């Protein structure tokens, strides 16, 4: 039931004329995780809602629609409206009192074949300070995070620049259009101990040693002319320095490996 309502909302959004295609998201650099399933390219969309209120009590309104293009690349587009005059004023007022600008998306799975079992039982939310959004002239970066099986688990919003310096934004035009960068990030696969390259490297070194007979000579065979005087010198210099000599010798052996 809830999904139906959401879908109808999206449709109404799509039909409005003031439809704006903002910058499209970067392709996900992470590998496609989970069992790769061949998916069609029909795609689907979910609403992105936002809220900014003077009293800081969240009342979410539709900001735009996230268009997921299914398939291997997890591409995402954000179609969003312009801010109305009223919204712009509210936004400035909220920024003045250091209020929050919140966004939310329903919990969905990005895998198209899972759409049927998708339940919009809750939302994931994030916030940014309204003043930083105003001062950055609505330049925000929204990132959707998914887990290994493609469920959206978190959303984050940052503005660039992110600071609030109290700069007055004069031009109303700057607050009309969102300049959004959106992307979907899947977890990266953590590395495992790299044994194969290590063994390969070791083998190469062994080979190198084998080729060069000069190298095969032991440490002492190569440097005896330096070591013998050193040892003699140490022995001459008496017992006072014994501990230092012992440590040096031990280290030398360690280095020879």
């Amino acid at each position, binding site marked *: 039931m809830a999904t139906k309502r959401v879908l109808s909302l999206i449709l109404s959004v799509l039909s409005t004329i003031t439809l704006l295609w903002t910058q499209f998201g970067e392709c996900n650099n992470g590998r496609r995780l989970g069992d790769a399933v061949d998916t069609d390219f029909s795609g689907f969309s979910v609403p992105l809602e936002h809220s900014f209120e003077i009293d800081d009590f969240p009342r979410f309104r539709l900001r735009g629609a996230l268009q997921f293009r299914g398939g291997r690349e997890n591409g995402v587009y954000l179609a969003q409206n312009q801010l109305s005059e009223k919204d712009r004023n509210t936004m400035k007022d909220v920024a003045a009192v250091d209020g929050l600008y919140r966004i939310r998306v329903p919990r969905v799975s990005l895998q198209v074949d899972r759409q049927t079992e998708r339940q919009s039982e809750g939302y994931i939310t*994030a916030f940014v300070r309204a003043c930083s959004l105003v001062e950055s002239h609505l330049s925000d970066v929204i990132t959707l995070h998914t887990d290994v099986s493609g469920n959206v*688990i978190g959303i984050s919003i940052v*503005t660039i620049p*992110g600071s609030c310096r109290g700069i007055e934004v004069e031009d109303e035009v700057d607050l009309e259009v969102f300049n959004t960068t959106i992307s979907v990030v899947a977890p990266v696969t953590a590395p495992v101990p790299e044994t194969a390259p290590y063994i390969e490297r070791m083998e190469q070194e062994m080979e190198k040693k084998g080729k060069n007979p000069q190298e095969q000579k032991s440490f002492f065979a190569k440097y005896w002319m330096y070591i013998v005087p050193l040892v003699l010198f140490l022995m001459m210099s008496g017992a006072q320095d014994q501990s230092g000599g012992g440590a040096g010798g031990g280290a030398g052996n360690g280095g020879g490996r």
Partner: protein
Amino acid sequence: MAWLVVRLAISLSLLYTASAVFEDQVGKFDWREQFVGKVRFALFDTHSQASKKLLVATDKNVFASLNSRTGDLFWRHVDKTGPEGHIDALLMYGQDAVVVVGNGRLLRSWETTVGGLKWEAVLDTGSFQAAALIGVQDFVKYVAVLKKSAISLHDLSSGSQIWVENLPDSDTVQYQTIYSGGNGLVFVLGFVPSSHIVIVEYKIEDGEIMKKKSVEAAWMSSLENSCAVISSGNLLCVDQITQSLYILPLQSAEHTEMRQIHLQTLDLEVASGFQPVLTSTQPNPAQPPLAEFFLQLSPDHHILLQLKDDLIAPLRDFNPSYLAAFATSGEKTVAAVMTPKNETACSINLFSADTGRRHLDTTIIYHMDPNGGKPNRLYVHAFLKKDDSVGYRVMVQTEDLTLTFLQQPGRVVWMREEALADVVTMEMVDLPLTGTQAELEGEFGKKAGKVQHGLLPMVLKRLSSQFILLQAWMAHLWKLFYDARKPRSSVKNEVTIDTLSRDEFNLQKMMVMVTASGKLFGIDSKSGTVLWKQYLEDIQPNSIFKLIVQRTTAHFPHPPQCTLLIKNKDTGLGRLYVFNPIFGKKSHISVPALPRPVLQTLLLPVIDQDYAKVLLLIDDQYKVTAFPSTKNVLQQLQDTASSIFFYLVDSSQGKLSGFRLRMDLSTELIWEVVIPTEVQKIVAVKGKRANEHVHSQGRVMGDRSVLYKYLNPNLLAVITESTDIHQERSFVGIFLIDGVTGRIVHEAVQRKAKGPVHFVHSENWLVYVYWNSKFRRNEFSVLELFEGAELYNSTVFSSLDRPHPPQVLQQSYIFPAPISTLEATLTEKGITSRHLLVGLPSGNILSLPKMFLDPRRPELISEQSREENLIPYAPEMPIRTEWFINYNQTVSRVRGIYTAPSGLESTCLVVVYGLDIYQTRVFPSKQFDVLKDDYDYVLISSVLFGLFFATMISKRLAEVKLLNRAWR
């Protein structure tokens, strides 16, 4: 080039070889205490008169032998944790101790002098019911083990099974007890609830059923607790509802019903709601038990009764009495009874068992610890004195798991605090300053407190404090002089609570330990002496404890203050206990009542006018309670409310949510992250330690540029494990989430991995250990976060203003050992390099340089990586035995490692706790700020003096020479 390699090798190996202890340093700054846990069975070795052995088996699955003169351990065997190693029964005969382990899985015989295993027998499956020694013709030869559906007889000297027999009708009858009186028969007693008792008689030689009979007993609810066999095979049972004793001769054929004896006829009555307990004694398993027995009618009422000529007669009534126990020495059996004397003391007396007459001069006074629990077990060791009278010693176990060993007339021979075998959490608190130091401090402290004084009082104050300092110094000198004349051994620095003071380098601290039984301890970290203890009553066994240091010792004259949050695991309801960590005294500060379950606690850097940090408690309706909640605090909270954020974790729904404090101390939800529980479940969430300092903002690279660290103090490490446990598909998830904004900073999955995951989150790195299910090995992985070559905002870090995600570097290594726990060293200023302390199941603590866990370790050595001192990548992590900080002092079942900085930058204090407690100091970068122990003062001062005089003399000579030249 070659020389460069050698030099590099020397410098590197010098860097690595750290932390090993020299032989003469053993025990100098480290100590270990070994524990056994809550005693379930304790037996004194009565085999020979001079024996000092006390055998104990505990709920921690430990079987140990204690020296009854000193309380030290002779030997100890630590079995597996959980039901697999659970000790079901302990029997002793002569030099042998027979133990049934793991719900009747194993039968073991131990040699008690050295603790060697004599034999072990694997028993058939079936849940364990009872075990007994069986004697034939005055010799104990066998041990019988009763399972739910079978009985088996084993030879005591070899463990070989003599016979095993199935019990008749074992699906309806509950068999619970074995009895043998040494007459060639074994009786197995069982019952059908509210119906009848079943007695099966077996022949010892071949296990043949000689007789089987059932006796009507409709009142019977449990055989084990309310029945006992006394005096040549009479089964005696007590029933609370009918207020009666029932008696039945086991061997006679004609009795088909138990004879009822109303307690009224003996002028006795069982206290309402109390399950009466019968205690009998069988001094020799090859002979029938005595005719005397104890009947406990209420928690503090025992009575000694005797069965004589089929009649039960009271011998002596002990009212009131807390505990009663039998003990045998030679032919004499005595009963020890503990009776209350006054509010704080109990007296224990000895009575002869057969007459109930009191032995003269046998009183032991037992002083109850006002901060401890009530006594609940009494173990008596009786022995024959030279004049053939019976002497005895007792061991008293209390509710707070203290074992006290007493001898006449009440001298405490030793004491063991077994609650310390189960430490839950701990903190280290600085010791207070000495009186003189505090005097000076007080002078400056008042200045900070904005109390204006006149000039004259200030001068006077300063003069008086200087005078006190002088006085103290004189006293110190006098003491030194006085002690110098005494022989070395007699000068002993006894640590007591009154002489406690901070040492020069703050190396000695107070360890505040919270144990699972609800007993708190204050332990001196230098010697391991327990300085104070406090037992908190009515602690539920499944409580969660959180210890918070609200005020440190630094705010003289305000005493330090610790707060313990005790939370019920099931209901979440909690309460606060506020105390002074130095003296262990309960504070009289009024604590807020917590009517709702507490979800989260938050210690703010905000302090009240008494320098106590503010603790926020968030309940399940997201309301915030502040403690302390004075006007001053509430004002400060209102001012800073918009910058106070906290997070909650609901692992059952996979939900992490962030909240912000509002002016009116309510909260608002500001972010939410939901990790679906169908895929993975959150197993652990950890932030960074609040008292951690990072000295260096970045790392200098080989090309002299700087790689800045991403030092986000609000970063949370969330570890998940997959619900799919198939070895190919299972994974461990690592999420780094900003606790203020809810932004997922990094998200990674470790494939083909499973838990348990141990991890350390510190500075700009996260180290975690997991089990690689594909290669079946433990692996370490390290994640480091860097901002890059430039800092976004170098002056201050704000989670709200850090738009660029950090660079994440990660590398993994094989670790060739399983791991129990993981912690990182911590020092005062963070200059010293970090080490990881790895607790291994073998009991060793490995100090692993963080240098080995560096994701920038290169595959191929280059000039730049050499410049940076990076070790070339090797997939396997080395374990060197000289890295074990506890040499041979292994710590059984390591559960946690606590690290605390000391006043010396090079030194980190380490406490390892588990079954044992081990305290030591580690020096991750060696002791660069301390002169060595064997520093040659004589040489350096003689050289100095020599040079000085040489200069003087040569100067003089030069002068003479100049003068002579001038005259010429």
